[in-house]
């Protein structure tokens, strides 16, 4: 097999670390890395070799808001991890869709005030109507960094060279609007939104997830059918 050639592995690792690969080649290499600990080791060696270059970049003090942004994103995850990660809890919501969303909405409505207040929630279900992924809209108005929280109930299967893309389904006949890519490897993640999008997302009828070419749909529209789909429920 081609990727067993040590010289080729070394060269690819070096170019990955240097950063010269195209988006497509990077994505392919990353999917190799996922399953190849040896290759990860070769990459780590190159990272170490080239690390003085990274260290040589002059230090610049970041603005204080950067830490505030980071802190606001790690705090919600820390709280009550048992609640978010309890698969059993989600499985038990098998009476899917709107009912599940309502249950979650009520649940969150009563959550302690340390969690950012949630405006809207949608539980996306798979083709068998089992809850698969949940999307939460924290209150956006005062947020410097508008984001969605995406919580996978079970991780979707993903083919190498593809990405998962999250879509907002507007009311009426308007086409879906991309909300960004979802990382299949992370059970809980925050999807950053553009400010303009954050203002309109409150009007969404629902959300959906599709499998797209690596890096997202090239056309700006979903290129395949939806894997998951769910209706939005206002919490307020």
């Amino acid at each position: 097999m081609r990727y067993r050639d040590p010289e080729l592995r070394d060269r690819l690792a070096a170019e990955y670390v240097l950063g010269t690969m195209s988006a497509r080649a990077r994505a392919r290499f990353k999917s190799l890395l996922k399953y190849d600990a040896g290759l990860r080791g070769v990459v780590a060696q190159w990272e170490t070799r080239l690390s003085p270059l990274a260290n040589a970049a002059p230090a610049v003090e970041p603005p204080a808001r950067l830490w505030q942004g980071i802190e606001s994103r790690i705090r919600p995850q820390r709280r009550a991890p048992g609640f978010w990660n309890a698969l059993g809890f989600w499985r038990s919501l098998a009476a899917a869709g709107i009912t599940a969303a309502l249950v979650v909405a009520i649940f969150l409505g009563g959550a302690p005030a340390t969690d950012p207040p949630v405006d809207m929630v949608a539980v996306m279900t798979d083709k068998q109507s089992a809850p698969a992924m949940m999307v939460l809209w924290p209150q956006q108005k005062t947020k410097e960094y508008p984001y969605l929280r995406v919580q996978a109930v079970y991780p979707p299967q993903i083919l190498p060279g593809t990405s998962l893309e999250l879509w907002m389904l507007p009311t009426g006949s308007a086409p879906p609007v991309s909300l960004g890519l979802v990382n299949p490897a992370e059970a809980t993640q925050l999807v950053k939104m553009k400010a303009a999008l954050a203002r309109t997302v409150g009007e969404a009828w629902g959300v959906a997830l599709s499998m797209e070419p690596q890096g997202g749909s090239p056309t700006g529209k979903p290129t395949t059918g939806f894997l998951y789909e769910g209706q939005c429920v206002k919490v307020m």
Partner: protein
Amino acid sequence: MNRPSPETDAQAAELAALLAQCGLGKQDAFAALYRATSAKLYGLAIRILRREDWAEEVLQEAYVNIWNHAADYAAAKSAPLTWMASIVRNRCIDWLRRPQRELGGEQSEFTIESREDEAPGPLEQALAAGEAGALARCLERLEGDQRRAIQLAFYHGLTHPEVAAKMKRPVGTVKTWIRRGLMQLKGCLDSGDHQ
């Protein structure tokens, strides 16, 4: 002057301990880790992305990622700052490769800022200060074009065709420079032939 790399063993041990604490969900340790590393990593992101707003966005993602994966650091085979800087660099490169950028909408910045490269780069400065150590000495031994191509790629997050466009040379030539340059660097570093 022959100083060790800026990340001394004591610093590395301290950062590794903080990462271990982060892996256990200790937010105080994460705050300390941020204080100890953010200026360095923000500087790196600015150097690559050349826009403060992008650097902020990428650094925020990177630190959230570091927090989420701190427990994995134990299995990493590199120094803590190397591990963290790699997360930042990878995020920067992914950012530069995001689809809307590859379509060409933002290309113009390269030309706007290209003059900056005529000034001594950070590596030259670090080299003058004796900080970059073995790597700098090995880089010195490369041909000028090889070295310049590697530094352009590293500090600008450029692809082969982008480096070629900047150096006004054919892609194939630049690819060869980079490939041979990297392999020579490896030989030089691994043999300890740089003293």
